[in-house]
């Protein structure tokens, strides 16, 4: 498997990413890319460092290395400032504001935006993708089911009108039909709005069907990388690293 970067302009370029929690080093010099308007997936077993990778991109953990977003360095910036550059992160655990209503959660997603009329359009769009959210829009977010909270988390990220969407195990704990629907939406927004995505997933088969490029992590290092289709068709890689 070659480590060739995906073709086209690069939305996100990461070189030599190290990360640690306190004294424990978790990532040991990762290199990966997300193409402009592309979907890249990062796969691996539990504990491989996938979630940490997304957190490191947002500077939520102690990081070293170069992170370049659309040509500009973002490593070292505070998380909230990275977000303001157009990076939306849907964290593991969803990170919903449990005591606020669905609508308030969505409004917070658009907090940094100045274009009020466009925000209202985006509300309609997001309710279009997930009608269930519209039904429950005045309900307290903490009372939503797991699937609904995941939809809310993704919607909140979309309300930012991000350039880059970081998704941390969006399929986790969801029924297969819900996961299908969710991934359909990902495909749609990627096609329609050219939003780049960095998708961390345990569900390798779904991720490899959605993404164009894939990286496999093992204990904080990239062990395999290449076009998603190639990895999907490679039985050896699938058996040894992805378990299917």
């Amino acid at each position, binding site marked *: 498997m070659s480590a060739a970067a995906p073709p086209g302009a690069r939305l996100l370029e990461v070189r030599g990413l190290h990360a640690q929690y306190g004294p424990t080093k978790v990532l040991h010099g990762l290199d990966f890319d997300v193409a402009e308007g592309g979907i890249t997936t990062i796969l691996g077993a539990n504990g491989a460092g996938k979630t940490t990778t997304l957190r490191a991109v947002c500077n939520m953990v102690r990081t070293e290395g170069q992170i370049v977003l659309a040509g500009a360095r973002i490593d070292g910036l505070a998380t*909230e400032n990275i*977000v303001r550059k157009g990076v939306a992160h849907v964290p593991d655990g969803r990170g919903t*504001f449990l*005591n606020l209503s669905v609508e308030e959660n969505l409004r*917070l997603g658009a907090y*940094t935006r100045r274009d009020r009329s466009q925000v209202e359009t985006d509300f309609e769009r997001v309710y279009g993708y997930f009608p269930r959210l519209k039904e429950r829009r005045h309900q307290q977010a903490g009372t939503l089911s797991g699937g609904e909270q995941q939809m809310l988390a993704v919607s909140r990220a979309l309300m*930012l009108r991000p350039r880059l969407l970081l998704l941390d195990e969006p399929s986790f704990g969801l029924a297969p039909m819900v996961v299908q629907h969710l991934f359909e939406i990902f495909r749609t927004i990627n096609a329609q709005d050219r939003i780049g995505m960095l998708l961390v997933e345990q569900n390798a088969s779904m991720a490899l069907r959605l993404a164009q490029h894939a990286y496999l992590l093992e204990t904080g290092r990239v062990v395999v990388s290449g076009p998603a289709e190639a990895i999907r068709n490679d039985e050896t890689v699938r058996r040894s690293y992805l378990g299917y």
Partner: protein
Amino acid sequence: MEQLTHQILSGLATGGIYASLALALVMIYQATHLVNFAQGEMAMFATYLAWALLQAGVPYWGAFAITVASAFVLGVVIERVIIRPVEDSPILVIVIVFIALLVIFNSVAGWIFSYTIKPFPSPFPAQPLFGNSYVSSHELGSTAITLVVLLLLFVFFRFTPLGLAMRAAAQNPVSSRLVGIRVGWMLALGWGLAAAIGAVAGMMVAPTVFLEPNMMGGVLLYAFAGALLGGIDSPGGAVLGGFIVGVLENVVGAYVGTELKLTLALVVIVGVLVVRPSGMFGRVNVVRV
């Protein structure tokens, strides 16, 4: 009956002041899980500022506005400059910092303005409204002012984007950063608002208790009692608790004697802590093992 009505209405007036201070305490508690002991001294200091402005000939409502604005700025500055360096320190370190603030404000006020008791004017007329014998104009006026303040705050938090951001930052700072909220500044804003509320409370209470560096001690204790009673993490509860404590204080004080008033606050505090620490409306903390 007339006596009782008078005590209750009077109690509501002081209760309004406790309610606003209780709200200030809860605002900071929600964002930091800490109670700002220095809230009372900051309010006292702001009231002295108002006094100085009035002495210089500034008309009352002008002095009021300047004082509230200055208190707001002072609160923001204190959070950014003094609290921020120790933000992530263990709780006791922050407690000591609060104690230091309390002591510094108290001492500086005494130094600049001396410890002699000063009268502080009320903006409301001396004669009671329509000559009634239930409630003085000042009591009525101060209740109105505190209600306006509480209403403005409610509208701010419930209906404005900034208010929403502040609520979010207090509940979930990590997720707030993920939507681009500058959590540090939200905290500073909270301190600013709390200080401004305190200034209003100070200016409303000073005509009754007279202006001196230790004037807010008892008031703060009652505000604590009210916040605890209503629930230290419930803004609405804290407000209600403040009013209840105000009425209780007056009614009990009239019938049992005023020397025990402070003891009453303590009894409420201890009583709530023993029977139901989360107060009337606070969340009962269920810790997941």
